[in-house]
């Protein structure tokens, strides 16, 4: 897939970056105290904070990852949207007001409000740092992915640009600049995503999608007899039925000196051959795309409807439709999805992408990505565990929780959460249309589905693409700045000030926060570069599982179980961290990354939440029961409902 840099895209990118930097320098003049640096002075309006919540939450994983997953796996991608949104219910009903009431600058403040315990300060700060770093890595990797098509710059340059800009944003005005950058980005993301969806619905559905004026590639079919004699002249077989290709139901042909790979489908006359797309990785690591260099543009964007039906009638196009009619037509149609197989061809590894026509009502229900049909116990466990992590993770993310300290009251904390639910819920409904739009508009890059939403915008013209890509970059900027505020607060406030007891003036605390932000920013740049190529959604899933296991049990039990002790909370955080991280590190997915077979992994599941969350609760209860004599209650502090 070839991307052409547009001067408009570059101009918009420079405008966005200049705007957020200018805003940060302007707000820096008002950021001299620790309250203003860590909590934006605690006087942000609830509506502004609600949209800023959306800006914080709708990260690269939501905008790029979910849309890409829906584009290639249908409803299963949208399951992430549903799970992420449901998590906000935990935040609203259980966590929002108590967090505001108990905390000052960080998530650790709230946990430690009743105890003033060194063990809580240390474990909660480590948990905040780890979760923030796990969340930072995919954002930085996402920045590197975006900067290549947008500016034509290599991955590491994109990571450095984001790292430097965000560090300046945070180091100048802390939570104040971060809040307004998030508000700006969250608002624009909602508006522009709505515009793209309006384009999708106005264009409607078609069996021949047009991509920015370019017609969709016509994937050919051939007929062959049982001995693989091709009916169309000029083709000869390179690798037949007995080869590794044949064993995987493919055949390699050549015509006019160009090799192509075809998917074999048995029929009455022998075989029907369907054209595929393939990537060949040579022994020296170089890659070709459909037998040619990437720049040749032979690796076509995909995604189309094979049979389009409206009210039982087969049609070529629907014209403009409403949102429900759009989904209804998709449900009744047949959509071409793409399967993937790996074949060893001598010293080369060939990844073959082949067409899989799928009924629309099958696409619009779970099961294409998650193994839920005739699932084994492990597969069901994996699915339920993931849905649990999504549900429990949101209310335990440190960079989300600290936003409750920026509003003036508990009612404002509650109202800002409701604004967040409305904004994020609306966005997640849009993701279904963005993803399905990409699935049927011939824009998917099969080697990197993260770019599906920007490329869908490109299919409507370069102006929309420029705006959406710049906005996606701003999305990364916003989320990373929130994470760096959370991480720097954990270092400067929780560790240096509280745990180590370093006595600092108010000005000194701000300076410590800014220095921590610079250090965390440098670490984020380094990690963003070395993790190039890692799946964006993969690490976000880690962050949710770790946050849900390490933080949520401690928060909930502190609020709702009066016998909770400081040692119980520290034990809960430690057990949650160690068990979730430990299970992830020995999971089949990680085994593949170590270069081993997934079946050789010590455990058979990838999502740890269903084990690590109960373990964390259990550790808290057991240790609290053992250490009841340490329980110190003060009349000055309160627990929920007290």
């Amino acid at each position, binding site marked *: 897939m070839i991307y052409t840099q547009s001067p408009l895209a570059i101009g918009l990118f420079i405008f966005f970056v200049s705007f957020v930097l200018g805003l940060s320098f302007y707000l820096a003049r008002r950021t001299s105290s620790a309250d203003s640096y860590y*909590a934006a002075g*605690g*006087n942000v309006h609830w509506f502004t904070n609600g949209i800023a919540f959306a800006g914080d939450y709708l990260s690269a994983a939501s905008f790029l990852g979910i849309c890409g997953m829906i584009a290639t796996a249908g*409803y299963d991608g*949208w*399951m992430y949207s*549903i799970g992420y*949104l*449901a998590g906000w*219910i*935990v935040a*609203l*009903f*259980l966590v929002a*007001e*108590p967090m*505001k*009431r*108990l*905390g*000052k*600058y960080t998530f650790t403040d*709230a946990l*430690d*409000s009743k105890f*003033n315990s060194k063990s809580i300060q240390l474990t909660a700060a480590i948990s905040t740092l780890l979760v923030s770093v796990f969340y930072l890595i995919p954002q930085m990797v996402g920045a590197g992915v975006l900067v290549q098509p947008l500016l034509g710059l290599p991955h590491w340059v994109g990571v450095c640009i984001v790292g430097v800009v965000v560090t300046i944003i945070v180091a100048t005005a802390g939570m104040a600049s971060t809040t307004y950058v998030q508000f700006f980005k969250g608002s624009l993301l909602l508006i522009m995503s709505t515009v793209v969806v309006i384009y999708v619905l106005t264009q409607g559905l078609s069996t021949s999608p047009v991509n920015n004026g370019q017609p969709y590639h016509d994937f050919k079919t051939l007929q062959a007899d049982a001995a693989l004699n091709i009916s169309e002249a000029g083709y000869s077989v390179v690798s037949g039925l007995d080869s590794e290709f044949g064993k995987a139901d493919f055949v390699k042909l050549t015509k006019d000196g160009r090799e192509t790979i075809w998917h074999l489908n048995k029929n009455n006359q022998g075989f029907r051959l369907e054209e595929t797309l393939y990537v060949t990785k040579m022994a020296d690591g170089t890659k070709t795309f459909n037998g040619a260099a990437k720049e040749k543009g032979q690796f076509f964007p995909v995604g189309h409807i094979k049979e389009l039906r409206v009210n039982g009638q087969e049609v070529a196009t629907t014209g403009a439709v409403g949102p*429900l009619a759009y*989904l209804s037509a998709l*449900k009744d149609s047949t959509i071409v999805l793409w399967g993937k197989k790996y074949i060893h061809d001598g010293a080369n590894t060939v990844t073959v992408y082949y067409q899989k026509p799928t009924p629309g*009502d099958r696409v*619009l*229900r*779970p099961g294409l990505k*998650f193994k*839920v*049909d005739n*699932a084994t116990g492990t597969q*069901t466990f994996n*699915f339920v565990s993931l*849905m649990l992590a999504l*549900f429990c993770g949101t209310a335990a993310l440190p960079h989300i929780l600290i936003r409750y*300290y920026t509003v003036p*009251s*508990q*009612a404002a904390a*509650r*109202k800002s*959460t*409701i604004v967040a*639910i*409305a904004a994020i*819920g609306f966005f*997640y409904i849009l993701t279904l249309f963005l993803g399905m739009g990409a699935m049927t508009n011939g824009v998917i890059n099969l080697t990197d589905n993260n770019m599906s939403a920007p490329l869908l915008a490109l299919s409507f013209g370069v102006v929309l693409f420029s705006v959406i890509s710049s906005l996606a970059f701003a999305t990364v900027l916003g989320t990373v700045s929130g994470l760096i505020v959370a991480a720097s607060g954990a270092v400067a*406030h929780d560790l240096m*000030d509280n745990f180590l007891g370093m006595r600092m003036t108010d000005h000194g605390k701000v300076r410590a926060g800014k220095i921590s932000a610079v250090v965390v920013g440098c670490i984020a740049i380094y990690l963003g570069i070395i993790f190039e190529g890692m799946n964006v959604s993969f690490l976000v899933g880690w962050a949710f599982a770790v946050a849900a296991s390490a933080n949520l049990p401690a928060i909930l039990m502190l609020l*709702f179980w009066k016998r909770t002790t400081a040692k119980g909370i520290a034990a809960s955080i430690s057990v949650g961290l160690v068990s979730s991280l430990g299970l992830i590190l020995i999971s089949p997915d990680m085994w593949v990354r170590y270069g081993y077979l997934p079946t050789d992994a010590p455990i058979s599941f990838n999502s740890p939440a269903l084990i690590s969350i109960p373990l964390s609760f259990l550790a808290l209860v057991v240790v609290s029961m053992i250490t009841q004599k340490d329980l110190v209650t003060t009349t000055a502090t*309160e627990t*929920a*409902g*007290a």
Partner: protein
Amino acid sequence: MAHGPAVKLGKDNASAYKTKLGVKMFIAYTLVYAIFVAINATTPKTMQSIVLGQTAAVIWGFGLIGLALVMAVIYNHLCTRAEARMNS
């Protein structure tokens, strides 16, 4: 170092009421979410059936997102009313 709020908060007499209400509404939503996950995990084909012209999965998805917003608005209304009544 003190851990209390960055801004001074007044006493909230409605706190206990809001906590109980929050727990009840949380349980209600969690039950619906759990049923959704259970259907997907055990009988995913059920989600392919057509309800109101869409697959049941799509209706469930819109329903869960819409329910979250409706419950949030109801919760805020009840909390605001309780705050006005108890903190006046």
